[in-house]
């Protein structure tokens, strides 16, 4: 390879990334600002006085605060619990606690109405229901359940990177009880991870749409995202269109206000690379509660928050009429027959096509950014792409609609652009992580062993990247498959995705068919999700081999 060619690679990638970011995010957001400024005559001030608007904004902020307050402690506690070596079935629990985030938000929200709402599962079986599930309380609880795994993941990474078990042991050997060691050593070390989790959870909650739409809107509880949806559904009213644009801008401003200081304060610390493993990762010390209790608590939590609702959802999908007690006597497949029509099949086809295209393009874009990060020109690219993840979907959709709606309104192309903009970070993270683990020394060692540059890349750098690329592809595919926030704002005649069909069916109040469609959507996700799980298991760096072990049955030497 000549020197000239080597320089060409990064600059081409840089051009591609810059063009994509410009077209997908920068230009649309600029158009958004421009339109808002243009309309900001008397109209905008008047807009604020529109009935329900101020309360929607306040609701959004309150929900974000409440969800953060609930989800971050739950996620932190889960991470701490799963670090204990005495919890039986730990590998299983590590995957199981991610379940709430793997279930599409719409399905999770809807399943709660079917399990705990009026005429739901518990109502039919026990005669008990929770009226609050439709309304602010339900919105907050379900969003917290679905956000807790994100907090868990961030805190678990922080634990692995910063809280070596020896640090806690040193505290215990200095006279600290286990709770004191947690308070004085482990939690302070996790401060930045917990803060990052709080920022991410609140920002994602600001942009959440499906759960507020399913649980809040029917009870008259509006948030900014549901309001934007309602505004755009109203069709031709120009005033509601302006309101949607203004709200979209507001959402991104609030997000930026949250993220910018957090990224400045936490970014450098969070980007610290993980130090070497300190051998035995287990902290086996006397504990107040045995590991079994922890496992039972986790199981109970998952059963109540995900297991029972999903069971109720399936039950509702095969039950003949709402309110009938669940049981074989009332089982029917009518709901499935009713929804498996031409329209659904076409929507499934569109969803699969979109997800396939988006994932494939995103892996290329994500790989470009990951490669750029390692060159001088593209050092900030990774941060930029990561920030795109927290852009609220509603804002992105509205901005893209303004920028390209003239040509692409109602087309699959516009939805695809939205997916690309929103999910880029998801494709970038795994590849970037795999590249980070690759040290220059490994490539040098390959060269010193006689490999040419190309061979070194092929034999040393590429193998660990393959599962990462596959993992990134699958994450994008699964997420695109059930995306509803942007799709529901951008679809037109002939471009409905399956998630949109589910949402529309739910709006029509058809409980059985909605449940059936939700089950179908979940099943559609199950296959790639299972593949993803297998891939992610391979993504983990292999553990160092054990030292030569003695069989446990070896008799102790007969000492006096």
């Amino acid at each position: 390879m000549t020197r000239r060619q080597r320089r060409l690679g990064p600059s081409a990638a840089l051009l591609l990334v810059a063009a994509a970011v410009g077209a997908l995010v920068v230009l649309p957001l600029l158009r958004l600002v421009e339109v808002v400024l243009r309309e900001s005559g008397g109209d905008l001030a008047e807009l604020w006085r529109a009935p329900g608007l101020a309360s929607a904004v306040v609701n959004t902020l309150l929900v974000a605060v409440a969800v953060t307050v609930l989800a971050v402690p739950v996620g932190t506690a889960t991470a701490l619990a799963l670090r204990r070596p005495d919890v039986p079935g730990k590998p299983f629990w590590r995957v199981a606690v991610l379940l709430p985030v793997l279930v599409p938000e719409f399905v999770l929200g809807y399943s709660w109405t079917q399990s705990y709402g009026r005429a739901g599962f518990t109502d039919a079986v026990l005669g008990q229901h929770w009226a609050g599930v439709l309304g602010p309380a339900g919105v907050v609880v379900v969003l917290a359940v679905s956000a807790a795994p994100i907090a868990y993941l961030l805190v678990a990474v922080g634990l692995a990177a910063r809280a070596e078990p020896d640090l806690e042991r040193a505290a215990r050997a200095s006279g600290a009880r286990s709770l004191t060691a947690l308070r004085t050593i482990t939690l302070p070390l996790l401060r930045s991870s917990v803060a990052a989790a709080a920022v991410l959870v609140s920002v994602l909650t600001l942009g959440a749409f499906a759960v507020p739409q399913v649980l809040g809107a029917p009870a008259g509880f509006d948030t900014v995202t549901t309001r934007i949806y309602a505004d755009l559904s109203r069709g031709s009213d120009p005033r509601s269109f302006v309101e949607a644009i203004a709200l979209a801008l507001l959402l991104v401003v609030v997000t930026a206000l949250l993220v910018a200081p957090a990224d400045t304060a936490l970014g450098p610390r969070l980007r610290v690379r993980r130090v070497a493993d300190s051998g035995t990762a287990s902290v086996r010390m006397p504990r107040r509660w045995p590991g079994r209790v922890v496992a039972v608590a986790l199981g109970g939590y998952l059963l109540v928050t995900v297991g029972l609702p999903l069971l109720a959802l399936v039950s509702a999908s095969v039950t003949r009429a709402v309110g009938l007690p669940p049981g074989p006597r009332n089982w029917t497949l009518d709901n499935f027959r009713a929804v498996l029509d031409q329209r659904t099949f076409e929507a499934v086809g569109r969803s699969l096509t979109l997800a396939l295209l988006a994932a494939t393009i995103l892996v290329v874009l994500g790989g470009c950014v990951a490669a750029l990060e390692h060159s001088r020109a593209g050092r900030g690219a990774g941060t930029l792409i990561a920030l795109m993840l927290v852009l609220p979907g509603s804002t992105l959709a509205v901005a893209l609609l303004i920028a390209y709606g003239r040509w692409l309104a109602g087309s699959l192309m516009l939805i695809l652009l939205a997916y690309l903009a929103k999910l880029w970070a998801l494709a970038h993270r795994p590849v970037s992580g795999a590249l980070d683990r690759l040290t220059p020394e490994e490539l040098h060692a390959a060269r010193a062993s006689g490999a040419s540059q190309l061979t070194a890349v092929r034999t040393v750098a590429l193998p660990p990247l393959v599962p990462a690329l596959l993992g990134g592809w699958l994450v994008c595919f699964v997420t695109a498959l059930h995306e509803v926030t942007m799709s529901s704002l951008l679809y037109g005649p002939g471009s409905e995705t399956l998630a949109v069909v589910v949402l529309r069916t739910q709006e029509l109040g058809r409980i059985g068919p909605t449940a059936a469609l939700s089950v179908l959507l979940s099943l559609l996700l199950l296959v790639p999700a299972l593949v993803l799980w297998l891939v992610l298991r391979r993504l983990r760096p292999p553990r160092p081999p054990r030292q030569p072990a003695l069989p446990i049955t070896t008799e102790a030497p007969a000492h006096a």
Partner: protein
Amino acid sequence: MPDHTGATALDVRGLTVTYEGWAALVGATLTLGEGEVLELLGPSGSGKSTFLYAVAGFQPPAAGEIRLHGQLVASAASALAPEERDIAFVFQNYALWPHMSVLDTVAYAARRRRTRRGAARAEAMPILERLGIGALAQRQPAELSGGEQQRVGLARALARHASLYLFDEPTAHLDTQLRNVFIEELLTRQRDTGAAAVYATHNAEEALSIADAVALLDRGVIVQIGTPEQVYAEPVDLWAARLTGPASVLTAPVVATGVGTCTVLVDTIELTVSCSNARPAVGSMRRLLVRPGWSRLGGSATGTVEAVWFRGPHTDYLVETAVGSIQIREAGTPRYHVGEPVQWSLRRSWLLGDEPVVGEETDVSPAPLPVPSDSPRH
């Protein structure tokens, strides 16, 4: 400092520790008197850290008992938490808390005794001063060098005022010069406090130079316990001999036996060696351990110089002889070249193991040795 007159500092019996189905330590038994230093010597993975972790309470035993000053602190049935044991720990990786200043790190133990913050810091300061790191009090761990970090680790342990110190390869990450300074410091402080100490290392020189007693660990089993002189001069087998220092192995016939001794004929040299453990037949071939200082150049036996290593204060020669290769140490600079014929003689040797020689020298797998459970020294 607690007074524990009449009790041993540490009494470990039949200690077995397992990790998820494999045994890291099997049936370890030893005792340690007040104020004594015990070295755990073994290669990495031999169970040194596991032993210390079990004594500290970081790892519960699967079998056996641990007593500190006569008090049972751990058995298979129950274990006291680390904070309830009278121990202090110094970690191989320092394990300094990244969010705490040096002063607060050393004041931590006092804080846990419910001392107020100001008083705890006032208590910590003299410890820092004594270790010569008073000027670092306000620094964070990230701003310290490796040697400074380990001094803070030692200061933190001293602040615990424990009667048993556990050192887990504290010098593993320090360079040689720093290592010697640190060990000197550590021993001075530890003797000041009158506390006992268990010190894990894989460095034989370090182990032999500072210990009252040395325990050799091989794959989770204590294969020998004795004074440094004992384990160096009378290793239980070839593996132990190689672990504790440079070892040459010669093959020679037994020509006569006496009470607890026997006479071997090494080349032209007749030598009486102890054979209390082995009872070899006259005429059988046996393996003999020779340490570098036990032989010298000049004498009746002959050989050829195979290799020469100049080591500074002395020179090591590897001499090929009819009975095997032997390493001979001599003060000063080299005076022979490779290939030159030399004379040599032997003044001391140690009969290895029980099994007769078969062909080439091979590593014998270490057999557990019945060890008297009494304190090995004093």
